């Protein structure tokens, strides 16, 4: 009899428990990460009777959690992928918003406007209004494009580094939660028999999924108990009941560093994505903007420093960029960008003086390398530099100046030249050139400049000041010396503007003296360049009108005054395209337009802001001269920035950003879809179906009713027994 009741009771209790589980499922139908639970019902161990075993009722063995472990792993993996793509896509979208290149007020537009202002100045160099416009557009370019971009990038970088810090804080709280759950799960599962800590397991899985969004994890199940160890990028962050604290520090503005985690081994996840953005991508695009700014500053300054403003020549100029030490080599003296001097050794040479005051330098067992040219300087054994006036052959040069030590000596050749033109009060010009060595210091440079007649130079606190004597002005243009001297006793004059690409030296020599005077007989003067190539044969015989101009080449014409000539008379004429081949003036900041060397330091020089007539549109003192402005305009079509024009470089950077952003966007979108599909799969297996639970409710409700009815029947039966 007792066993009947207990059978009935077991039925009731089982039904009740089952209903409880069903209720739990229904209540948690919307809980994220919840796996439905199922009561595992089995018949109780049967009682032994004389007629064999008889049933003893029903019991709940365990409450089973329906979950697919493999699916969990897949979900975690793809969550990592998504985390990585998501943060990168978001940051790239921010970078795109900063660049904002397709809008109207973009860097592309402002750069274009800067050059159109230079164009406008080139068609009216006399006017102040076009110069003011240029100044305005230059300042807009600097402030609203370069500096603003630089600032926005810095802000973005700081933002990303802050995100990294907060993600690491989240990481720490997640890992500590996992270790805590490990302990509680062990308490349950190691305690009672076969118990399954279902809800806690679900919670731990949820936290693990959240963790995998931060970085790719590997979960290692402990063999002896129910904890899990978690490896994040190879670093053990959860070990049983313990978790590692990961720290961050700032190594400068916007550079967050993570300690305690082997970040190089992270392949996915938000941390990896953010670190990639902070350390690689943002610096890359910032770097592009900086490269463009540096290139523009340098190239504009190179040309600007070789021109003059409306006032013509200078009486005093001061360098804007101070050096750290006046005795340190200029290539290493703390200038925003260094001058570019090339020096190469040529082995040993001998030299012999010529009657006309020049020296022939011959290589001894060595030949001069192919890039030796006129206007380069040769350093001979006395330590002085001599200017190369012609390259006679692979092993022979002619240099100007007498050098009387004919012994063999090792030598070096430098191709840094600076031309200085000094004009007196009657407009007579004297053009001198000085050599720039690779190890030139500010002090030695000042001495060389000061050595030019009527020019004084001094160095104070690392700053160079160049002044001219009273009544004289000077400049650094590529204008030719209009009065190069006489050939024989015929006074010559030059006219025009040299349009060749390289600096050169034209040598005039009389090949036929006619009857010994200019303008008579069949007199002929041949003009050769420094390699000996014939440029022109000038007929100065009887058909030549003394004083008229004859064309040589490349925009240069010459006139010959009356005078005597004999065969062999020579005259060397400097023609210059680049009067400052090592861009010394530009790096020192002498007569320059921009200051700075990257996007954040770029600004228009105060020297220009103070007086717009200083903008160097000209190469001579004539008001209508726009030759330097035309040189500036020409910068747009030259490949000066990483072998591209300014525009091409910028466009390339924008396009690359666009490609990267588009790729990340589509990557994120496809991971999103994949993850949704995986989640649906999980729902299929572990999700609660209200309909199903409702039907189960009916089932167990009836079971309960039936058991209850059975108990009351047993009660009735026992009542009858009692009444016997």
């Amino acid at each position: 009899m007792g066993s009947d009741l207990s059978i009935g009771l077991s039925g009731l209790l089982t039904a009740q428990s089952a209903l409880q589980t069903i209720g739990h499922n229904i209540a948690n139908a919307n809980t994220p990460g919840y796996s439905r639970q199922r009561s595992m019902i089995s018949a109780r161990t049967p009682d032994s009777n004389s007629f064999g075993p008889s049933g003893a009722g029903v019991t709940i063995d365990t409450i089973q959690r329906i979950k697919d472990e493999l699916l969990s792993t897949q979900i975690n993996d793809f969550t990592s992928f998504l985390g990585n793509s998501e943060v990168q896509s978001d940051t790239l979208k921010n970078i795109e918003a900063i660049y904002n290149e397709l809008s109207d007020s973009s860097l592309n537009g402002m750069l274009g406007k800067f050059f159109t202002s230079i164009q406008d100045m080139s068609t009216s160099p006399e006017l102040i209004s076009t110069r003011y416009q240029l100044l305005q557009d230059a300042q807009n370019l600097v402030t609203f494009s370069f500096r603003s971009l630089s600032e926005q990038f810095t802000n973005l970088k700081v933002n990303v580094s802050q995100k990294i810090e907060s993600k690491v804080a989240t990481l720490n709280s997640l890992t500590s939660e996992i270790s805590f759950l490990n302990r509680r799960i062990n308490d349950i599962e190691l305690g009672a028999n076969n118990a399954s800590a279902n809800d806690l397991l679900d919670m731990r899985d949820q936290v693990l999924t959240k963790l995998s969004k931060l970085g790719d994890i590997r979960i290692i199940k402990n063999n002896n108990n129910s904890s899990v160890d978690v490896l994040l990028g190879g670093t053990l962050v959860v070990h049983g009941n313990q978790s590692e604290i990961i720290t961050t520090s700032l190594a400068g503005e916007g550079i967050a560093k993570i300690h305690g985690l082997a970040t190089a081994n992270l392949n996915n996840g938000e941390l990896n994505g953010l670190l990639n953005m902070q350390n690689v991508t943002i610096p890359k695009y910032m770097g592009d903007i900086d490269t463009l700014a540096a290139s523009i500053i340098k190239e504009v300054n190179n040309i600007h420093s070789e021109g003059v403003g409306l006032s013509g020549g200078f009486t005093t100029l001061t360098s804007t960029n101070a050096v750290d030490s006046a005795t340190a080599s200029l290539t290493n003296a703390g200038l925003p960008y260094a001058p570019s001097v090339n020096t190469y050794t040529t082995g040993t040479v001998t030299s012999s003086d010529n009657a006309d005051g020049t020296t022939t330098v011959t290589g001894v067992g060595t030949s001069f390398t192919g890039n030796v040219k006129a206007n380069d300087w040769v350093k001979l054994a006395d330590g002085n530099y001599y200017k190369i006036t012609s390259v006679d052959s692979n092993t022979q040069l002619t240099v100007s100046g007498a050098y009387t030590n004919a012994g063999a000596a090792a030598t070096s050749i430098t191709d840094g030249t600076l031309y200085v033109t000094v004009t007196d009060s009657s407009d007579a010009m004297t053009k001198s050139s000085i050599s720039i060595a690779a190890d030139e210091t500010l002090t030695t440079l000042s001495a060389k400049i000061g050595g030019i007649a009527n020019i004084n130079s001094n160095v104070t606190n690392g700053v160079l000041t160049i002044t001219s004597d009273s009544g004289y002005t000077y400049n650094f243009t590529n204008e030719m010396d209009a009065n190069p001297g006489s050939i024989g006793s015929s006074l010559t004059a030059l006219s025009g503007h040299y349009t060749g690409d390289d600096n050169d030296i034209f040598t005039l020599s009389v090949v036929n003296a006619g009857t010994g005077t200019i303008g008579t007989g069949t007199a002929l003067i041949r003009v050769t360049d420094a390699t000996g190539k014939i440029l022109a044969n000038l007929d100065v015989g009887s058909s030549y009108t003394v004083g008229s101009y004859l064309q040589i080449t490349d925009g240069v014409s010459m006139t010959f005054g009356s005078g005597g000539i004999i065969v062999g008379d020579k005259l060397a004429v400097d023609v210059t395209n680049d009067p400052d081949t090592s861009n010394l003036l530009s790096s020192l900041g002498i007569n320059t337009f921009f200051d700075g060397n990257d996007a954040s330091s770029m600004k228009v020089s105060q020297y220009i802001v103070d007086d717009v007539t200083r903008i160097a549109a000209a190469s001579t003192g004539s008001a209508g001269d726009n030759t330097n402005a035309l040189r500036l305009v020409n910068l747009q079509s030259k490949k000066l920035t990483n072998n591209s024009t300014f525009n091409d470089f910028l466009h390339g950077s924008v396009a690359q950003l666009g490609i990267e952003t588009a790729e990340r966007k589509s990557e994120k979108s496809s991971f999103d879809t994949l993850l949704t599909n995986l989640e649906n799969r999980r729902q299929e297996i572990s999700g609660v179906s209200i309909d199903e639970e409702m039907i189960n409710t009916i089932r167990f409700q009836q079971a309960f009713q039936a058991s209850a009815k059975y108990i009351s029947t047993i009660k009735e039966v026992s009542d009858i027994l009692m009444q016997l």
Partner: protein
Amino acid sequence: MTSRVNLETFISTTLANVQKSTSNMSRLQEQISTGKKVNRASDDPAAARKILSLRSEDLSLDQFATNLQTATHALDFSASTLENTSNILVRITELTMQGVSDGTDQSGRTIIANEINQLLETIMQSANAKRLGRYTFAGTETTTEPFVTTRDSSGKISAVVYKGNRESIKYNVGPNTNTLVNLTGEEVFMSSNLFGAIIKIRDNLSDGAITFARNELDNLDNASQNVLNAIAKAGGISSTLQLTANRIEETKLSLQEVMATAESADIAELVLKLTEQQSIFEASLSSGSFIFKTSILNYI
């Protein structure tokens, strides 16, 4: 196909699709309201690069066109000023021929010499012509009067000195292309000694030195030819520039066409797509809500 589908699955799938629909609609909306297919580089990186490059080229072409116009005006002004001078020289030649002929007496010659003097003053004005505040025939010394006269005691010009220079002024009218825009006083007036010839003719006529005056006719003819050559040179450059300007305009038109194709959105097509997207959106919402309503709870 999934065998066990619950409400959660329906909801998440519907949500995902609804989000995709709204995101598509928002993108189409952006394209319609800006009128542009490409609003950021990531929309279409290759097209974005092309658009940027086209924009830069467009800006360049505009500037070239402006410079061409400025150049043409300068050259045309030089040419028309010199045409005036050329006509005056024709008149001076006529007068000189008249003056040296035997049929003219000294009083006649004096009158002719006076008229030639007046004409000389007019030529001086042309030589010192100014445009937009700049002297036209001064080379690059555009702010200094190029021709300076010395006058004798009676106020007549006795000598003319050229204070300008021989430099040419160029404007940038194409990539790596600069055009000459000026004629120097040296090449137009001084190299042929125009003023010298006229002054000699005038003085010799008033002195009655017919032979010397007649000898100058060759020089005067030379000088006139020089002026005509200068006019032809300026005119030649100007018409070449005009051709370049026309070509630039054609290039600009085709450039704008290419830009429009690359950049502009076809509004009609986009609105159609938007309508389509909208109906998909509505259908997924209504089918979703239909499914959500159906549950066993309605039947128990």
